[in-house]
């Protein structure tokens, strides 16, 4: 899809089965491969569509069996409260995401959502720079879309880094609501050649930076913005167990000790994180 949805493509149906106010069964209403091995799924999840904020995630069970066993967290791409649809974008990277990519409209998914913290953008932010790496583009897409609608006049620059042009997508969407959208690819096959943090000098007039991507990229953003007088926030990922704060499996190290990606995160003040590139 290349444009935000303005009409309702989904027939009105009865509400999704509600197991609790965080646990739902949703019908797949959209399944589209937008780039090689990159999928957008839309799920009919009215409660999630109504309440989810940029940065939050869905914790999705892939099948009823025991392999794969654990749920997988997926950052929310956007929501359509009117239609009761929440969408995710994911890359096929292993068994679990391969199973998910096989789901077709009409099938169902079992989700815990919306979970985790969201991006908080102070009211005085006039110019926001978003720094995305690969699949890390997802929560920043949601953030840019929501903010541009909620705060007319806000200037959003979206820097999208990837290995190659094949891994850069949805730029036309982003151009509708961002002042500037720049692709940066390691092989130069789309946009600028190089890595996103190489362009940090162009972010200097930002009132805030928000980032999401590989640990190495986040480390580079940390380094380059270390003494900038603006907030620098980032959405993180981790291997995750319960997604609810109970198992303590998904922690990252911060200046205040270990914190849970599912509960204190996934959105953190990037300066508080002690990131190890090896992890």
């Amino acid at each position, binding site marked *: 899809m290349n444009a935000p949805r303005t009409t309702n493509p989904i027939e009105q149906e009865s509400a999704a089965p509600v197991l609790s106010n965080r646990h739902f069964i949703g019908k797949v209403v959209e399944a589209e491969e937008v780039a090689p091995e990159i999928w957008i799924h839309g799920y009919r999840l009215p409660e999630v569509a109504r309440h989810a904020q940029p940065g939050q995630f869905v914790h999705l069970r892939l099948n009823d069996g025991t392999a794969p*066993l654990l*749920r997988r967290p997926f950052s929310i791409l956007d929501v359509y409260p009117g239609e009761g649809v929440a969408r995710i974008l994911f890359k096929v990277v292993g068994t679990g995401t391969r199973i998910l990519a096989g789901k077709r409209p009409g099938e169902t998914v079992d989700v*815990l959502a919306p979970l985790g913290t969201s991006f908080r953008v102070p009211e005085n932010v006039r110019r926001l720079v978003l720094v995305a790496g690969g699949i890390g583009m997802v929560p920043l897409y949601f953030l840019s879309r929501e903010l541009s609608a909620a705060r007319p006049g806000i200037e959003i620059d979206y820097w999208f880094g990837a290995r190659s042009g094949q891994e850069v997508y949805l730029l036309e969407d982003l151009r509708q609501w961002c002042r500037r959208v720049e692709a940066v690819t390691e092989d130069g096959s789309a946009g600028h050649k190089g890595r996103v943090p190489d362009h940090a000098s162009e972010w200097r007039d930002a009132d805030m930076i928000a980032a999401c991507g590989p640990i190495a990229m986040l480390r580079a953003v940390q380094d380059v913005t270390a003494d900038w007088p603006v907030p620098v926030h980032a959405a993180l990922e981790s*291997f995750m167990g319960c997604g609810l704060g109970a198992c303590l499996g998904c*922690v*990252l190290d911060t200046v205040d000790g270990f914190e849970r990606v599912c509960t204190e995160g996934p959105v953190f003040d990037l300066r508080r994180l002690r990131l190890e590139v090896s*992890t």
Partner: protein
Amino acid sequence: MSAPATGTKVDMRVQLGPLELKNPVTTASGTFGYGTEYRQLYDPTHLGGVFLKALTMAPRPGNKPWRIYETPSGMLNSIGLQNVGIEEFFAKKEPFCRELAAKGTAVFANLAAQTVEEFQQLVERLEETDCIAAYELNVSCPNVKRGGCQFGTDPALLRELVSSVRPGTKRPLIVKLAPQVTDIAAMARVSVEAGADIISLINTFPAMAIDAEKRRPILATVTGGLSGPAVKPIALRMVHAVRQAVDVPIVGMGGIMTWKDAAEFLLAGASAVAVGTANFVHPPSPLEILAGLEEYCRRHGFARVSELTGALELP
């Protein structure tokens, strides 16, 4: 055994030594926090019991990430007993434990320590609250450098620990056994001889996962504990072995995902079960297991769920 008519209520109460649980379904330590985390999904007071996340005297930061990883039909964890410590427990967590206890859900404190003295101190401090039904001695955590499973794999140390803690409380003592021993029945016998009232098993298996591309272990601590359906057949065999060896009640656990798994553990000799990894996969599992067990009893003509315990018909 009397066959109840269809629709008749099955008596779901079970006896764990001196304790009566309103039903045999509990949640395993470390998978359910202090009960509060799952309140957003359902009312935990429906459970027969809750085994709290391990407590130590001082707060513990736990192990470096990565701490968990999925393996075939199982998962590895290496949390490292991260917990708030006993003082913070009293300040922040104990009030909800009181609520659980008031509604008839047994609260089991899982205690972890590096020394016999620290175990004794934990018991002494927890005697101050009346919301704890029993103490589960965690002598089987595979993920800490000291303490942890050393008590649970050395019979002499285990005997010393249990007999030293025993005089400090009138509450039941539960020993949570480690599976990585040659003869788990012998460890159960030692525990009971030293004063344990209840045996719970199994804790996770020491195990590891490797990233071949990076030529590195996945977990920061190299090894972790394996849980989930992958360990269930081994856990069943161990519950069966312990049932033959000792007369005290058993809390069985290891990969229980469904009511059928739970029924198998009861038949093998457990009086109650603990649901662990399934809490992560499908949070309502314990409640569905409870409903499924009741239906199973009705279908098989058991008026009381406790009749299932050890009802395995051996060839």
